[in-house]
């Protein structure tokens, strides 16, 4: 159900993605826009680095007391007249939401953008129960029309170009005149706005995610730019929030700290356009708003991450900065990662959620350049955690045989320093002699992984260690 896992085929996915010309064109926008905008936003706030520390500390404090803050948050939701549904896994979360929809005879639900709903495969579960789910975020709407899944956690259709969107709108919006002009992005936006406006008004249930759940007040918080999340939760009779347990944030002040790094890291805005705190259902005298307010709070393996090597990952606030700055993401895009969460955060999170046996390639899809960690607003040590996964993959004999025997061979020499020095000196000298005319090799046995794509430089006359020693002796 939900996203079909293709993470085990990461290498094939990546190869295909790199040969996909429209995808490569679309990825150019990520490389340029996201990086420049975040850099400008960070430079525009002298306190930005200190706020990153503050955000990290708030998340660490919350994770250390997660059980107590969850209990406090639940008390507050109930006091405001809301309902809380606890879900251990995807199946329980889907069942809770389907039950709410069925009990109210819902035929259509509108949805704000929610990565958790992708994680649990909510749309398929609703469809199986005869409930049509309509994505209302522009990017989500576009990819729903195409039967695709998000390729980015905050820009779900970032892998597409506008001509692709135009042809999808012409294919699906058949009630509109054929000769209409959709050449400009503004025309596409206006058309989506008009089509979805009616859906907002007709929907029986509105489902949103949450960026934060506030323990102090029992509120859920969504952060959006389009306003679709607000229409989704304001117009229908029932508002359902789906959120995972680590979204808990102690106080309003803590939310303010996190908001100051969230939008800046994500889109380079100081604040997203709409930051909305929702607390319970419609109150006496309210002329609008939902009559019921439900929160489905999901674990799905997260509680098991506490206290272990991957706890730091639970600080993630889903800004997308790590993928926006990742050379691997820039090269292959989000779909190659083969599940819901792409980029560096996905490479760490996906193995914990679907298993390292399926997602073992992802932590290997890194150059360890460290840009992800250098921009993470909550300072998650992403490269370190990818290394943890590589170690586990090795321990569980999941890495390929050639790699394992190569490492064993290397280890044999590495444990015998004199032999290691002798062997490397001999091979370095041999390569130097062989390559002295051209200074490089176009082909080399056992090194085709390198030489198929570029020349291998011929080494200098001796090893680094030997040259170093010589230099010190001559001084």
């Amino acid at each position, binding site marked *: 159900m939900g996203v079909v896992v293709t993470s085990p085929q990461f290498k094939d996915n990546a190869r295909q993605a790199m040969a996909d010309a429209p995808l490569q064109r679309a990825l150019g*926008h990520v490389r340029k*826009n996201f990086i420049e905008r975040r850099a400008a936003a960070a430079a525009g*706030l002298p*306190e930005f680095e*200190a*706020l990153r520390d503050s955000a990290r500390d708030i998340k660490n404090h919350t994770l250390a*007391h*997660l*059980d107590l803050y*969850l*209990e406090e948050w639940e008390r507050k939701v109930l006091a405001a007249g809301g309902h809380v549904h*606890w*879900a251990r896994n995807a199946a*329980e979360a889907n069942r809770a939401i389907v039950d709410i929809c069925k009990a109210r005879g819902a035929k259509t639900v509108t949805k704000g953008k929610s990565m958790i709903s992708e994680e649990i495969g909510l749309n398929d579960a609703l469809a199986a129960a005869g409930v049509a789910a309509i994505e209302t*975020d*522009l*990017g989500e709407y576009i990819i729903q029309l195409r039967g695709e899944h998000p390729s980015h956690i905050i*820009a779900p259709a*970032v892998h597409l170009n*506008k001509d692709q969107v135009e042809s999808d709108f012409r294919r699906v919006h058949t009630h509109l005149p054929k000769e209409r002009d959709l050449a400009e*992005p503004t025309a596409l*936006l206006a058309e989506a*706005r008009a089509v979805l406006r009616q859906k*907002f008004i007709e929907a029986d249930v509105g489902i949103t995610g949450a960026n934060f759940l506030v323990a*102090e007040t029992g*509120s859920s918080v969504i952060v959006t730019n*389009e*306003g*679709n999340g*607000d229409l989704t939760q*304001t*117009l229908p009779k029932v508002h359902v929030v789906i959120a995972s*347990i680590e979204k808990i944030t*102690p*106080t*309003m*002040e*803590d939310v*303010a*700290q996190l*908001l*100051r790094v969230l939008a800046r890291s994500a*889109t380079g805005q*100081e604040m997203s*356009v*709409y*930051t*909305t*705190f929702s*607390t319970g259902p419609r*109150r006496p005298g*309210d*002329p*609008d*708003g939902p009559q019921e307010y439900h929160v489905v709070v999901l674990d799905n393996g997260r*509680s*098991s*991450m*506490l*206290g272990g090597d991957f706890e730091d990952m639970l600080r993630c606030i889903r800004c997308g900065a790590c993928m926006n700055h990742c050379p691997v993401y820039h090269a292959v895009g989000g779909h190659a990662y083969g599940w819901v969460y792409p980029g560096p955060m996905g490479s760490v999170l996906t193995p914990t959620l679907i298993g390292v046996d399926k997602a073992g390639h992802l932590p290997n899809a890194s150059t360890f350049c460290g840009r992800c960690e250098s921009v993470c607003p909550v300072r998650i040590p992403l490269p370190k955690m990818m290394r943890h996964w590589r170690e586990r993959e090795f321990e569980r004999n999941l890495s390929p045989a050639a790699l394992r025997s190569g490492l064993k061979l290397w280890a044999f020499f590495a444990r015998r320093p004199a032999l290691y020095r002798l062997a490397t000196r001999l091979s370095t000298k041999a390569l130097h002699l062989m390559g002295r005319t051209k200074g490089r090799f176009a082909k080399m046995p056992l090194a085709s992984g390198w030489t198929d794509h570029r020349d291998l430089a011929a080494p200098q006359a001796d090893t680094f260690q030997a040259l170093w020693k010589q230099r010190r002796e001559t001084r």
Partner: protein
Amino acid sequence: MTARDDILANIRRARGVAGGEAPRRAAVEERLARAPTGIIPARARGDAAHRLALFRARVEAASASFATVADAAAAPDEIARYLRDANLPATLRMGADPRLAALPWAGTAIEIARGASDGHDLNAVSFAFAGIAETGTLALVSGPDNPTTLNFLPDNHIVLIEAADVVADMETVWARLRERFGKGALPRVLNLVTGPSRSADIEQTLLLGAHGPRRLHVVLVGAGEIGRQD
């Protein structure tokens, strides 16, 4: 075991705690009671003139338009001018806020509708609960006075704000909310709005007017002329 008990037990097992330990409970209670403020950017610190100038600059940076009126009684004329200049019909929906009801609408040609929106209104006006100078953000609260639907359904949203309600930062808004609604309580909806609706989902090109208002016009009441801040 219910899912709730199971999840909480899992968390406690992973943490190596029982849940009831006094120091942990005390840490949580203390944080909830005291709500420490953390780091507040210095940029909004200063006197009222600085705060209002920064507010104006940030509102305009977020692609909203901005006007000032000497007192609330001058607001209907400013709104009529705004609608006329934007070639919009002279219609306006508003909630039951007594501050809006008291204004001299009869002096303009604007046709007034009252109550929540059903999606068929072009223009609406709301009174903000507060403004945040740090980011040019408006804070609006739900209820009959200023229905939430007015913030999102109409194409053009006009928001009035008293100069005295423009504060430095979010933390000051939180303090005012606690004063009004009580500690640990919020109105059903608190909207923080920074500029008009937008999307960059098509080729990362930023376009205004995605699902919410295409235009946001902020009218500051009772501040005199606010200088542009560069």
